[in-house]
């Protein structure tokens, strides 16, 4: 097959580009350790979250030194708890599930972003930095009131977190 030399050069460059793109993503996974939300959690009964020990009371829980777990429930058209309060400079694992339809969970302006599918639990672990206040939006259409569905994530200092007590259950 006749292919012009310039086009062969472009073909080679294109393949280099494709490999470089895959390489960058692989670097992101291996270097900074970016992990994908995946199938690590068991399915749950979305119609019976009230009886689920993790989701009957949406909350933030300390599970280790500087390690916290947040159990978040999304439903038409809100998130619970709101705000989600977590301490600064800690590792927080968010478990997010839906009571009804598909929702999205996006901490605005950050990389914390996941789909929420009823029956599944989205598990993402993030590391908090300085105290900050973030907005949370539902970024998947979930019904006529979709645009009012928002929440908050408050990253507070360690001492403030302890003073709040009740929120951290």
């Amino acid at each position, binding site marked *: 097959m006749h292919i012009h030399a310039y086009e062969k050069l472009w073909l080679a460059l294109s393949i280099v580009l494709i490999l470089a793109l895959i390489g960058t993503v692989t670097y992101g996974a291996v270097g900074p350790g970016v*992990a994908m939300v995946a199938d690590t959690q068991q399915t749950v009964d979305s119609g019976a979250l009230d009886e689920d020990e993790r989701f009957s009371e949406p909350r933030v829980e300390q599970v280790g030194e500087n390690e916290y777990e947040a159990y978040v429930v999304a439903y038409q058209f809100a998130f619970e708890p709101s705000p989600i309060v977590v301490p600064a400079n800690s590792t927080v694992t968010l478990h997010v599930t839906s009571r009804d339809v598909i929702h999205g969970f996006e901490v605005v302006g950050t990389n914390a972003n*996941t789909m929420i599918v009823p029956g599944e639990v989205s598990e993402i672990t993030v590391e908090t930095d300085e105290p900050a206040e973030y907005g949370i939006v539902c970024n998947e259409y979930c019904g006529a009131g979709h645009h009012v569905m928002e929440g908050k994530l408050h990253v507070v200092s360690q001492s403030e977190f302890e003073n709040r007590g009740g929120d951290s259950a």
Partner: protein
Amino acid sequence: MSTALEAEQTFVDKFPDEARVVRAAFLSAFFALFLGAIFGIIQTLHRTDVARIIPSTDYYTVLTAHGVFMVISFTIFFLVGLFTWALTRSLDRPLINIKITWTWYGLMAVGMTLTGISILAGFVDSIDMSADVLFTFYAPLQAHPLFYTGLVVFIVGTWIAGADWFRTFLAWRSDHPDQRIPLQTFMVLTTMTMWYIATSAVAASVLLFLLPWSLGLIDQVNPTLTRTLFWFFGHPVVYFWLMPAYMLWYTVLPKIAGGRLFSDPLARVVFVLFLLLSTPVGIHHQYLDPGIAEGFKFISMTNTMFLLLPSLLTAFTVVASVEYGARQNGGTGLLGWLTNLPWRKPEFTGMMLAGLMFAAGGFSGMVNAGMNINYLIHNTLWVPGHFHLTVGTAVALTMMAGTYWIWPQISNKPIFSSQIGLFQVVLWFIGMALMSNAMHAQGLLGVPRRTAEPEYSGFDYPTMFGGFEELNVQIAIGGTLLFVSTILFLGNLALTMGNPRVSGLAEPLPSPVSGSEDAPQVLDNLRLWVSIAVVLVVLAYALPIAAIIQRGGLLGPGVGTYPVWVAPVFDALADAATPLVGAVTDASASLVEVVR
């Protein structure tokens, strides 16, 4: 106009029956474009809070209508028209039976009308019907059964269209056993093969799950499964939109530029690559889905990245063909030849600007394809920013520009005004540059897509790229320009239809610089490519789908039903189908075990 050209016959002179079908399909496409544009402008001005003439709860009816009318009706009706023209023209023979042709056109029209009614009924409170589920119709949000029914009828219409073209091709083949498949026919056949593979999943999703569920025959569905089946279809469908544009870039644009296609063999390679790689990539739309293993997502990403290859090759071949034309017209220098091109012709400038925007869309597409960077942009306004460059410009603008060239061929009527046409395509480019750029930027601010009111009470967006408000202004201005551009296009075409018929409009297509004789014979072996395509799809999807069924069950882990319409009473039939389900779940569980 030379006498030699006047002696040439146009398409409508040679194939008047087929030309009528092509015109009918194009007019259906443009009617959908008109409706889609109306909903587009309402939506743009609503989202940006410039003018809110509807309640925000109706925004999602508008959004569903805009999406379905633009990317299902407009693009696909144009495609069937263009493919009918291309196949008939390149085989130089009429379709086997024009009644069959009108049958599939009729089915598509009826299907889309049913779906359209179910969507538009969402505006009328007194009718218990709505399909506010958007173009992706994710369960457990549930549309009225008419919505799904219409989609099925429409897709069956496209299947018969493909069969019509294949039969015509086979008839040609028996008369010409040793000839190469003409390039345009090759493009039609590979694209339709891809379409059969892709639509099998969405047809299964609708017929096995969503339609019975909306009729009350089954209680619930597995939302991850129906979502996955949707994206099995949802990614190749974007290439189904794109292939008509590619066909015009490969076979018509070089002619308009005054040259010839640079390479026929590479064009064939590109279409084969699309057939092979378009489908086993859909999971890249589900990078942030729970319930799907990271390994499946990585495989999907690798396939997706290699899908860049045919588009990158296309960029070279098409630009080289245009450069060839420019140099035939006396163009010189490294880039000086760019001035020796017919920029005054809307069909040329429109397609070139569409290609330029596609290059920009190529970048945001790379980002969308990159697995972990999806956290940055998933479901933000970046994503619609991206596809308004690709389907919204590379496809839509090429289709409009192509119409300026092809309409005289199928009607013997010259275009009413080339000046208006030129203004219109440039206006589209400017409007989309403003709107899409601002949408990408808002996406990086974290502004979500698919929402009536992207301003929230509890927080403000960070200030970058000029800030949320300023970007809203750009989106509103851009959207308005796009609406005006659409109206100018439709007006120009309507006036063209009022022109008297003339002769001498024929524009035959030249043969490529490197012709089909340079293409290895194996490229025309469709059976081989179909087999490989099916194997790749099975490799990419068998395990993920089996795993999803094993996790959640065929009908899902107890997820409820959330109709956006008021359900009729079908409860008596409800439990009829459930016994079947357990068996399939068990079977898939054992499949997963075996493969592991």
